[in-house]
């Protein structure tokens, strides 16, 4: 972790995050004093922390202050892995939206209100969406409109509606628009029938028109005072909540069991592979595991069930959706399914390309699983084996990787529609390239298959 101020925390003058001696702290500035005190003294902080809706913190020494205008230094509980909305499946984004509204409702009962609604302020901690920005609250002044209304619609309602009404891939717009999907864009992409739903008509279509109409005007805030009563604000939150709840999306073929069927192994081979993965994990003894191409998390769960903090990446948002629903159903606390295309992984975006971290910046993982993956990278995507090895060496310290030879039916299928331009795609070629960067600790052929599983340690 880089020492100094964290690059994602600079917009809000209430305070900022910084790293000192490998520990993350948050400075609360003097100008935020009243709001911070109210958060703690009103009981809202404890209420939200008890419900798992807000990250807990402890107070730290003021000697750590980074500037003179300090009021408090706090040390937030560590978030095991920072993920971003463009890496979430539909239900994760929906859960984050509902958590945000639940927090706002609770805040209002304690005399506070959220002053921002960024989806980036929500992280999945122990399987639950949790607000990580302790300074997101302000003392509620009845009568004033809710300032983050626009942000909520852009960060949550618009992408959820676009996925629900159009296509799951539209969630990737969040990677382009860091402050949420512009409402005029959402309005133009949504189908006509979305206008017949009152919440979408108002919060997206008319909202977009209103933004355009008033784009060259400013509000007289004094005139606005007293125009949105507490009751009206509660009504607005309630309407947003019911709008979000009604938005649905499920992967095609909603029977989960049918969605993923791996016919690459017979039952003996599959059990052998599971046992080998478990043995190799015990040998590597990682704290953090990334399962690359984790599908619905069959092998990720072997790591997670051993208490390892596991991220299960897959490029198919349907797989991630199914995986996340299992996390919720099973109450799993150390497995985080996320969407990632390894051939075009999450980049660093935002101000100075530093606000949101790339996948590499968030690594390396202690151990990565790359099971039934290499042939997709090498043959489907034309990535030479040496480049595959280079990238995986940056992502992890230990590697559990499966080599699928050309004779395997899955590789034959990939080659059936194209010319074989991969003369080096052999077991020997694979071992040669990976041996440059890793020490091969173990290699085992999986029973009743031609595939080989390797345990490798980074050099």
């Amino acid at each position: 972790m880089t020492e100094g101020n964290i690059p994602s925390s600079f917009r809000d003058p209430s305070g900022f995050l910084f790293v000192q001696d490998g520990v993350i702290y948050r400075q609360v500035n003097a100008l935020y004093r009243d709001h911070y005190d109210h958060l703690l003294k009103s009981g809202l902080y404890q209420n939200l922390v008890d419900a798992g809706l807000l990250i807990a913190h402890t107070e730290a020494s003021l000697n750590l202050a980074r500037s003179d205008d300090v009021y408090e230094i706090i040390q937030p509980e560590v978030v095991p892995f920072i993920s971003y909305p463009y890496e979430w499946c539909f239900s994760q984004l929906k859960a984050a939206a509902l958590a945000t509204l639940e927090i706002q409702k609770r805040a209002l009962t304690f005399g506070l209100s959220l002053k921002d609604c960024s989806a980036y302020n929500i992280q999945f901690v122990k399987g639950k969406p949790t607000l990580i920005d302790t300074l997101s609250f302000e003392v509620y002044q009845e009568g004033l409109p809710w300032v983050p209304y626009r942000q909520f619609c852009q960060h949550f309602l618009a992408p959820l509606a676009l996925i629900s009404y159009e296509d799951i891939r539209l969630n990737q717009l969040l990677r382009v628009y860091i402050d949420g999907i512009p409402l005029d864009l959402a309005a133009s992409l949504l189908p006509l029938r979305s206008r017949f739903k009152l919440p979408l008509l108002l919060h997206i279509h008319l909202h977009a028109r209103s933004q355009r109409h008033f784009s060259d005007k400013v509000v007289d805030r004094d005139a606005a005072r007293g125009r949105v009563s507490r009751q009206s604000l509660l009504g607005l939150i309630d309407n947003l909540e019911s709008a979000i709840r009604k938005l649905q999306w499920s992967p095609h073929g909603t029977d989960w069991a049918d969605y993923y069927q791996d016919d690459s192994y017979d039952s003996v081979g599959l059990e052998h592979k599971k046992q080998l993965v478990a043995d190799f994990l015990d040998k590597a003894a990682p704290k953090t595991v990334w399962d690359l191409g984790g599908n619905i998390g069959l092998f990720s769960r072997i790591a997670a069930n051993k208490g390892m903090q596991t991220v299960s990446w897959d490029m198919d948002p349907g797989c991630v959706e199914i995986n996340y629903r299992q996390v919720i159903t099973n109450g799993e606390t150390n497995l985080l399914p996320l969407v990632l295309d390894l051939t075009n992984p999450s980049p660093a975006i935002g101000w100075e390309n530093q606000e949101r971290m790339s996948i590499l910046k968030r690594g390396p993982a202690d151990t990565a699983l790359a099971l039934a993956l290499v042939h997709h990278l090498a043959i489907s995507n034309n990535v030479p084996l040496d480049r595959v090895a280079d990238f995986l060496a940056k992502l992890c310290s230990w590697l559990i990787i499966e080599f699928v030879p050309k004779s395997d039916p899955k590789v034959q299928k990939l080659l059936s529609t194209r010319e074989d331009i991969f003369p080096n795609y052999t077991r020997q070629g694979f071992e040669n390239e990976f041996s440059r960067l890793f020490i091969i600790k173990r290699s085992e052929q999986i029973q009743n298959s031609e595939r080989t599983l390797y345990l490798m340690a980074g050099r």
Partner: protein
Amino acid sequence: MKLKRFLSEITSFALLAVLASLVLVREAHAYLDPGTGSYILQILIAGLFGALFMLKVFWGRIVGFFSKSSSESEAIVQDPGQDMSDQIPTKEGVESPAPSVQSERDND
């Protein structure tokens, strides 16, 4: 597409007709506030949602009253802390809404 455009014009006209009667805005000369449209829309629709919310709470109480009476007559014990948020159906069962503040505070 014609229908879409027609509806769009109608909604646009309706919105602007209401907005024209407002005295909340003044022309900006140097600063563009990207939140202005959001601010105005919220002020316009908040009253509507406030009224709807009041009706919802009122209706919830009526339903609650009758279901309670019915339950009492059948001598079935119900959780007194149950509130409206518990009655919102969750189709997917994915989200796990936290218990309402009201019911928690009642227990304090």
